[in-house]
């Protein structure tokens, strides 16, 4: 992560000093301080994870506690990877992640760049822009259903006011081709400020003297943007993309309340499929296998990405 070079320096505890201390030894204290956290995480994160791995090889169903649990080997995994509906859900997720990240990065960076012009009152307006991302995606997502209603909804009304299309034809949640965009719009509305904030930090981390040197060299503003601003802000942009990517890959609450995966299965992202299998059909073993696959996918993609990020930073 960024700005963490100081860590290695800080970690060297001065030995002679430590030895003189009375009471608990430093080592003891260290473990005393750290172990409760580790224990909690072992109990609530790691143990359940291993349990889920075990379940993923069985036909266990949580609503049939009395049934004999059979070991199925890899057949759950085979079934998932061969299931067309699962692949469609993965594609839907990919579509959602791709467009939200693209839009949020473009708009977020532009906003950050504009705010960095430091016009009067920029601090106040920045705070206003930040508000949507602090709210509960579930509670606010639910309200967007109202805004999207044809006729009575404000969104449809505003769009028809601008475009002249009758508001009854703007069926954001019912139209098969519009529904995927309805969730992209809400996500972009909520999380663009997030990307903006990180980009802003990136822009502000660029030392003034680099621009001053460029001015001396008579580099055009355009050139300055492409050869100084963008490359130097890139690690920050990539970090924002990483965080948003992970979050949207596991997106559940907003989509669940807004479209519930519909119409048909057009907005059924992976988490919705998983929830249906796990908590409605109660195919616990099967859905555990799906959960593991998702986890491995996020983890793998994130790791590859972090490697790329580190390369960019080293340049």
């Amino acid at each position, binding site marked *: 992560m960024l700005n963490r070079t100081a860590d290695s320096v800080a970690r060297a505890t001065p030995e002679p000093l430590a030895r003189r201390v009375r009471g608990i030894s430093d080592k003891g204290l260290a473990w005393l301080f750290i172990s409760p956290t580790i224990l*909690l*995480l072992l109990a609530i994160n790691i143990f359940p994870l291993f349990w889920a791995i075990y379940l993923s090889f069985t036909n266990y169903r949580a609503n049939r506690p009395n049934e004999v649990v059979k070991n199925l080997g890899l057949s759950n995994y085979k079934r998932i990877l061969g299931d067309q509906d699962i692949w469609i859900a993965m594609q839907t997720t990919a579509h959602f992640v791709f467009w939200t990240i693209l839009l949020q990065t473009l708009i977020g960076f532009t906003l950050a760049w504009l705010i960095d012009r430091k016009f009067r009152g920029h601090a106040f307006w920045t705070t206003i822009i930040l508000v949507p991302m602090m709210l509960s995606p579930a509670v606010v997502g639910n309200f967007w259903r109202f805004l999207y209603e044809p006729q009575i909804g404000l969104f449809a009304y505003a769009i028809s006011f601008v475009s002249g299309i009758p508001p009854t034809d703007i069926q954001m949640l019912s139209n098969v081709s519009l529904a995927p965009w309805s969730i992209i719009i809400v996500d972009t509305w909520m999380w663009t400020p997030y990307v903006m904030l990180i980009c802003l930090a990136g822009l502000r981390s660029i030392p003034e003297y680099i621009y001053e040197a460029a001015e001396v060299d008579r580099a055009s503003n355009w050139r300055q943007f492409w050869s100084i601003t963008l490359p130097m802000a890139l690690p920050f942009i990539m970090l924002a993309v990483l965080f948003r990517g992970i979050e949207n890959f596991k997106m559940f609450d907003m989509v669940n309340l807004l479209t519930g995966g519909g119409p048909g299965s057009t907005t059924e992202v992976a988490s919705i499929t998983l929830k249906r299998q796990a908590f409605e059909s109660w195919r*616990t073993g099967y859905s555990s296998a799906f959960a593991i696959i998702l986890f491995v996918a996020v983890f793998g993609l994130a790791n590859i990405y972090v490697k790329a990020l580190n390369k960019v930073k080293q340049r």
Partner: protein
Amino acid sequence: MSLTTAHSVVAPSANAKLIAGTIIVAYALISIVPLLWIFATSFKTPPDSIAYPPKVVFQLSIEGYCNLFTTRTRQTPEYINSLGPATGFCDETVRKRNMVIAGPSNFLPRFVNSLIIAFGSTFCAVFLGTLSAYGFSRFKVPLADDLLFFILSTRMMPPIAVAIPIYLMYRELGLSDTALGMILLYTAVNVSLAVWLLKGFIDEIPREYEEAAMIDGYTRLQAFWRTVLPQATTGIAATAIFCLIFAWNEYAFAALLTSGTAQTAPPFIPTIIGEGGQDWPAVAAGTTIFLVPILVFTILLRKQLLRGITFGAVRK
């Protein structure tokens, strides 16, 4: 990006500022409209809320708030007249719609659950997080990098995936639908954020202070208590608010692992319905009450925001 031509380093030109300012203000205003609409809808009558075209000017009413806190049943005028006089403002309002108040709604208990679970888990996460962060910051911990990464990675799991085994585990332990179960779970999720953030804050506190204290005869524990903690207060407060916001807003776990006794407000608010579908003024009223604390925190927090939402990876 054509605006780049107006870009000047040392001081952007007045024109550039004006254009930038206009765009930002316009964006801010548009992005705040849905929230204003929630607020406005909470003060509309049900017919006004679903009027076409949407009403910007409307009769102020607190019916939405009445409906939020009560359950009502539609009855004949004869039955209503047989009940005796209305007992309060809300009673009077609903009787005008041929309804009687059957009893209180579950909104208040759910809101209280939200408070208990969010504050409880925040306290635990910050407490554990502070200790661990200090441990990682000041001592040589074997495999420290791996442990830290492990702590962070716990937040990468899709919540539904985590919920499957937790559901089974809680069922065996009797923790399903209990505040304790939710506090433990949110603590576990939040502690990763707390450790990362607080480690950053504690790293910034010069260790010379503690060393000086220890030379004066304090033990390490006393030194931690007397010198490190007071200096980390800002960091701890910021971390606490971030943990609080997560726990306050969380939906997936709450929807799957609680059903009533310990259910929080986020899964409850979308289930507020009237006689037909959602009772939008009541939903808006519940949403408004639910959002106000977070709005206040956002404004208080704006300086620490960046650090919190990026796990301390970016600092201003």
